[in-house]
Every structure is written in C-alpha cells, then in structure tokens.
C-alpha cells in the first residue's frame, strides 16, 4: 500500500511517500527547482518519490493533500467580511492563489502525479492534523501529547492534541487571525527580514538584545491567558487585509518605521528580537502545561510540529522546564512536513492500520529521505566539468583526510548519501569546519555563505560526547534543540559593554566565548546536532577521526548553500556552490576536490543575481 502525501501552495512544497507505515522518501520541491521556499505543486518531488519507491502513479493507493481548500476558502470569505470595504488586496489574492490554485487541486495534483484519473484516491487532510500526524506517527512514542503551532492552516493556528497507537485527536485550537506564528512573522517583517526565511535570523539576533519590549508587546499586541491561549490586537496588524504584516500604529509603538532590509541592524531590532522571543517562549511553555493537564498527566512525552516548532531556542527552554520528560520535534516541522503527516494520517487513522512504537527509536530514518547519488553519478559530473579530483581508496582514508583538512583550517563542502528532508543540513549536504577557530564564524558568514555577520553556526557533536560540551537534556539528532555550552568550556566576555557604544556586531561575533567559539552564540547557547554512527556513519566517522586527531568532538555544521539558495540537491549543485564561494575543499562520495587545483571557473551571469536574498 503506497501513499503519496503532498504539501503545496502555501510555502515549502514537498512530497512524501510511505509504504505501509514505512517512510520511503520525502523531499522539498525547492531542492529540485532551486527556488527557495518554492510553493508550487511539487512535480519534481513527486517524481522523485515515485522513482525512489520504484512504482508508477497507478500503483498509488491514495494521494493526500495536507490542507483542506474548502475550509481555507471559508476562512478567506470570513476574512473578506471582516475587511468590509477594504477588500481589494484580498480579492487579488482570492483569484491568484485560492481560485486558480488551491481550489483546483483535484485537477493540478493528478496532472503533477501523472495519473489523470485519481478519482476515489485523492484526499485532503486538515492542515494541523497533517502537522500533528507528522509529529506523532514517526515519533518513538506509543502515547504523547501533541502541540502544533504555525502561521495559519485553514482556521487553526495553534492546536493541542493527543496521540495513542495509531490514532491522534486534536482537542483544542486557536483560530486565525490569532496566531503566534503570524505575531512572530510580524516582528520578522518589521525588523527588515523576510517572513518565513528570516524567522531564523530573528531568533539568532535575539541574544544580542534585551527583552525591553516585552511589556509593550503583552500590554498592546497580545493578550496571553494562563493556559497559553492568546488573542492578537488586530489594530496593530495589516495582514488581515492582504497587505503588509504590520501597520503604522505598530511602527509608532516601537518608535519609528520598519527597518529597511539590508540596512544596519540597530539595538532596537536586537531588543525587539529578544522581546518577541521571550513572548513566544512563554506561550510555548504555557501551552505545554495545558497539554499536560488536558492529557491528564498520562504521558511524559510531547511531540511538536508547525513552523513555530523550528524555534529551537524555545524548544530548548521547554525541555529545561521538564513539563514533559521526552520531547520529539518533527525535523520538517514546517509545511514541508505536512506532506509526510498527511500520508501517515491516511495510513494509520483513516485505514486503521497498526502502528508499533518502541519508545526509543523514531521512524524518521535520521530524516535522510531525499535522493542519493552513486560514485558513478558523481564522477560523471566531475568529468563533464573538467574537475581535478582525487578518489580515496577506502572510506577510512576519506575520514582521515577530512579530519586532517578540518584541523588545518579548511572549509569543506560535504556531499554524502541521501539528502535531508527539512530545513536543516545534518551532515549529508553540509559545510563543515573547525569549531575551535575564533575567526571561523565571521569567515563562514562573509566569505562562504555571504550572509549577515551576526548569524550563529551550529555544532555537530558525537552524541556520546555531547555532555562534555553542552548542558543538553537528552539528545538532539535533528538540530532542533538549543542548550548552553558547559561552564567548564566557557570563556568570559562582557557582551553588555561590548555592545554599549556601537550597533556593530562584528567585534562581538569575533570575541572568544568558549573553547568552541565558532558555535557558541553570544549568550553561550548552541543549536546542537548530536551525531550517531547508527544514523549517519560517514559524518560520525569524520567527527570521530577529528576527535582522534585533535581531542575535539565538535565541528561546525551549516547547510551546503549560499544565502538565498536552497540547500544543494545533486552533485552539480554542490560543484557549482563549491566553485562560486571561497570554500577550500569539496568531498562528494569518495571524491575529494581541492579548490586550488581546479581549472578557472567562469559563468556568463553572476550567480548573485540568480538567488533572491532571503
């Protein structure tokens, strides 16, 4: 029984295919089209899933879309009524997006799948059910409380539910326009970042500031109840009219106009980031307490999904609160993961199939669910592009060489195995470097990623050594939890004084904050990936070889892309990214390329014009 799940037409389109309860493949469309956050019908991802499963479209038992367009339409029309006379922008959206696309999925999806007759096999699940299913069904837990939070689905923006065996049930929800996701996005927008892709930046900016606007927010923008439920004061927002996220009244509240994108970041933006982060953490923690109450204290497990669940700082705080002993977050917590959830929901709940959970292992397969490429595929690309390369004789030699190169200060593009599903690169489409280097953070940001200097990098650490470096509760295989570095490796520095006289963050970024400064944020936090041999043998062995050589079990792990570019998918994408940046070495499969050996690389157009800044 093969089931195809599809998310599309909001943001981060994706397809996922399951066979029985086993996840066979999942991928985001952006990786194939090279258009970040591509929201089109995921034709390429669908084709990949069918190929990976080795089936034809006719073999599919069901195709499940992750959202109910009829309910979305209902919300939309209610929104029109609310908007009254001020409806022109909304109606533009109505035609462009809702009428032409979402309500036409019964035509668009069969076309994309390549099966004109999907009658009786095309289903829609609700948006937050898809999120909830993506969080619970692949989790290790037989029972768990469920929380989903995002911008908006059809109506719901936050839900609380419960999962047991092969069944989930959502009990409570908060409806649009009240949305913690939209509130956070309003701050992202106002601070001059792009909504959705810029939300991570706001989270990364928060530790530079102080939450001085916390009271302003809770007194004017949002009313938070003791149970974590909330209501927005719409007088400060414009999204409900189909326009910008915030309005003039919002700007007045924060002392002036929105920051112009790409202009200097000032103390105001840092403090706004810190303030909204505090509000989100408060809501997440209160909601978790309510989830615990609603589930009668029957479970020590919590699963999370929805875009807000990608806020790893909030996840880390939630773990520290110990409301639930165990927390599992869907690695593709945003809309992409809805494709997987929709398929799993159909299989388990609609078809009532048995689910087995051992309490320890999830079924996400390390989220390495995308395409892989053979050595022959890689060599073909290298030959076609006249690359100079070295093929290692053994995998052990590859690990040793990689470790030696990292130790020597090189920045390495690492392309191995199946591509990750979800926004995080976890060692198969990664750029890796030495976390001990005090200059590596700014070097990576400015010369490799071409992004803002303040943005932090994540550590990948051998799971068995994580406790030597970080105050981490449990593990973090998907880089979705933040924790502080251990006191024993901290180095003191005075952030307040350093930031007192200047808005320039670069000197602060370059201050040594621990023995692994490149992955230690200014508040001593780190977004951790714990690596095991079981889930990623190659990445584990490279870090292990690095440890043997240096005594350090930590490397920098950042996604293999430049700013505005989707993470690389195939060997050619990786080769292009390697040649376009100041990366030193590229490792693909068993092949090693050194930049200084490569023939001159020329492109007719500047790649910086290809990718829109995020």
């Amino acid at each position, binding site marked *: 029984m093969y089931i195809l799940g599809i998310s599309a037409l909001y943001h981060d389109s994706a397809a996922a295919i399951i066979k029985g309860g086993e996840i066979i493949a999942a991928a985001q469309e952006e990786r194939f089209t090279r258009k970040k956050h591509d929201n089109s019908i995921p034709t390429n991802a669908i084709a990949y899933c069918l190929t990976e499963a080795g089936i034809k479209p006719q073999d599919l038992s069901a195709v499940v879309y992750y959202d109910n367009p009829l309910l979305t339409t209902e919300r939309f029309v*209610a929104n029109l*009524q609310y908007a009254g006379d001020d409806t022109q922008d909304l109606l533009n959206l109505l035609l462009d997006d809702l009428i*032409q696309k979402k309500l036409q999925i019964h035509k668009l999806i069969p076309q994309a799948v390549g099966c004109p007759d999907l009658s009786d096999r095309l*289903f829609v699940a609700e948006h937050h059910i898809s999120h909830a299913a993506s969080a619970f069904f692949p989790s290790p837990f037989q029972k768990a409380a469920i929380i989903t939070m995002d911008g908006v689905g059809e109506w719901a923006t936050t839900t609380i539910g419960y999962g047991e065996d092969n069944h989930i049930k*959502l009990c409570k929800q908060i409806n649009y326009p009240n949305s913690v996701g939209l509130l956070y996005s309003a701050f992202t927008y106002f601070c001059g970042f792009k909504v959705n892709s810029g939300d991570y930046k706001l989270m990364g900016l928060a530790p530079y500031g102080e939450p001085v606007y916390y009271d302003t927010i809770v007194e004017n923008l949002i009313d938070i109840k*003791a*149970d974590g439920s909330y209501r927005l004061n719409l007088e400060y927002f414009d999204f409900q009219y189909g326009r910008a996220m915030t309005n003039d009244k919002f700007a007045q509240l924060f002392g002036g106009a929105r920051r112009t994108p790409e202009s200097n970041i000032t103390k105001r933006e840092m403090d706004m980031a810190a303030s909204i982060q505090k509000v989100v953490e408060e809501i997440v923690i209160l909601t978790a307490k309510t989830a615990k109450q609603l589930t009668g204290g029957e479970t020590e497990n919590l699963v999370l999904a929805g875009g807000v669940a990608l806020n790893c700082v909030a996840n880390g705080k939630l773990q520290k609160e110990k409301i639930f002993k165990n927390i599992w977050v869907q690695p593709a917590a945003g809309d992409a993961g809805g494709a997987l959830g929709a398929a799993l929901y159909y299989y388990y709940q609609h078809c009532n199939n048995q689910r087995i959970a051992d309490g320890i292992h999830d079924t996400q397969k390390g989220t390495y669910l995308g395409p892989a490429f053979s050595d022959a595929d890689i060599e073909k690309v290298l030959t076609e592009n006249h690359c100079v390369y070295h093929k290692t004789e053994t995998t052990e030699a590859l690990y040793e060489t990689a470790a030696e190169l990292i130790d020597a200060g090189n920045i390495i593009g690492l392309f191995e195995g199946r591509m990750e599903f979800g926004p995080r690169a976890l060692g198969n489409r990664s750029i890796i470097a030495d976390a001990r280097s005090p200059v590596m953070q700014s070097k990576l940001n400015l010369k490799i990623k071409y992004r803002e200097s303040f943005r932090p990098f994540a550590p990948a650490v051998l799971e068995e050594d994580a406790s030597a470096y970080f105050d981490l509760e449990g593990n973090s295989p998907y880089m979705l939890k933040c924790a502080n570095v251990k006191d024993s490796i901290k180095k003191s520095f005075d952030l307040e004084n350093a930031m007192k006289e200047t808005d320039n963050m670069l000197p602060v970024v370059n201050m040594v904050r621990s023995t692994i400064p490149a992955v230690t944020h200014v508040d001593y936090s780190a977004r951790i990936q714990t690596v095991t041999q079981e889930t990623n043998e190659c990445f584990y062995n490279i870090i292990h070889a690095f440890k043997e050589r240096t005594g350090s079990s930590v490397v920098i792990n950042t996604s293999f892309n430049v700013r505005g570019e989707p993470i690389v998918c195939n060997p050619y994408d990786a080769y292009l990214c390697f040649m376009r940046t100041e990366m030193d070495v590229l490792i693909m499969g068993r092949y090693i390329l050194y930049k200084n050996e490569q023939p001159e690389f020329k492109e007719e157009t500047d790649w910086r014009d290809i990718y829109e800044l995020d």
Partner: protein
Amino acid sequence: MSLIKEKNLLSAWAKENTIKTMSNQSSEGEASYYTDASPNEIMEYNYESVADMQAMFSGCWNIQCDPKVKTILAVSAIANVPIEHQTQEPAMDSASEMRIPDFIYMF
C-alpha cells in the same frame, strides 16, 4: 466600495464563533481563548466536493461590478462557473498584478 452587500447571507455559513474570532472585541471575563478543535476529518476531494462548496457560496455573493476584470472572474469562478465545465483558464492581468506579496504566505 462594498463588495459584499448582503453580509447576513454570508454569516449563515461563516460560523458565529469564527466571526467573533475576527473581531477586536474585548477579552474581559474570558479565561481562555481555546475553542474545541475541528473534527479532524479526512475527506475525498473531487469535482463533487468542490461543487458542494460552490453551492455554499451561491447566493452568498452579491457583487458590484468591479472595474477590474479579475475581481469579476474571481467571484464568477467561485459562485457560478462549474469547474468541470471550464474550458479555459480565466484571463490574467499583467504579471506584476499577479504577484502575490511574499508576506502573504498564509493565504
């Protein structure tokens, strides 16, 4: 310009609590903003289900003629035109007008 003249027809199916949600009314006295979750149903999606939705809309809309063709098309598509009988896509305005603002991902 009011595009929806007869709001009472709309409210027949736009549930009272959802309209309440859209309002700015005071929160005084409320202990919680949670509502019961929707039924979590999975449904087959086909021409019939879309037609059912169209029937819901039929009569809810009484639209003034907007000078912009796309507005009329939007309303026609939702209220009057059976999707299975459409032979061509509605005409589009210029590409610039078709662009969806990047911040409106939630629609």
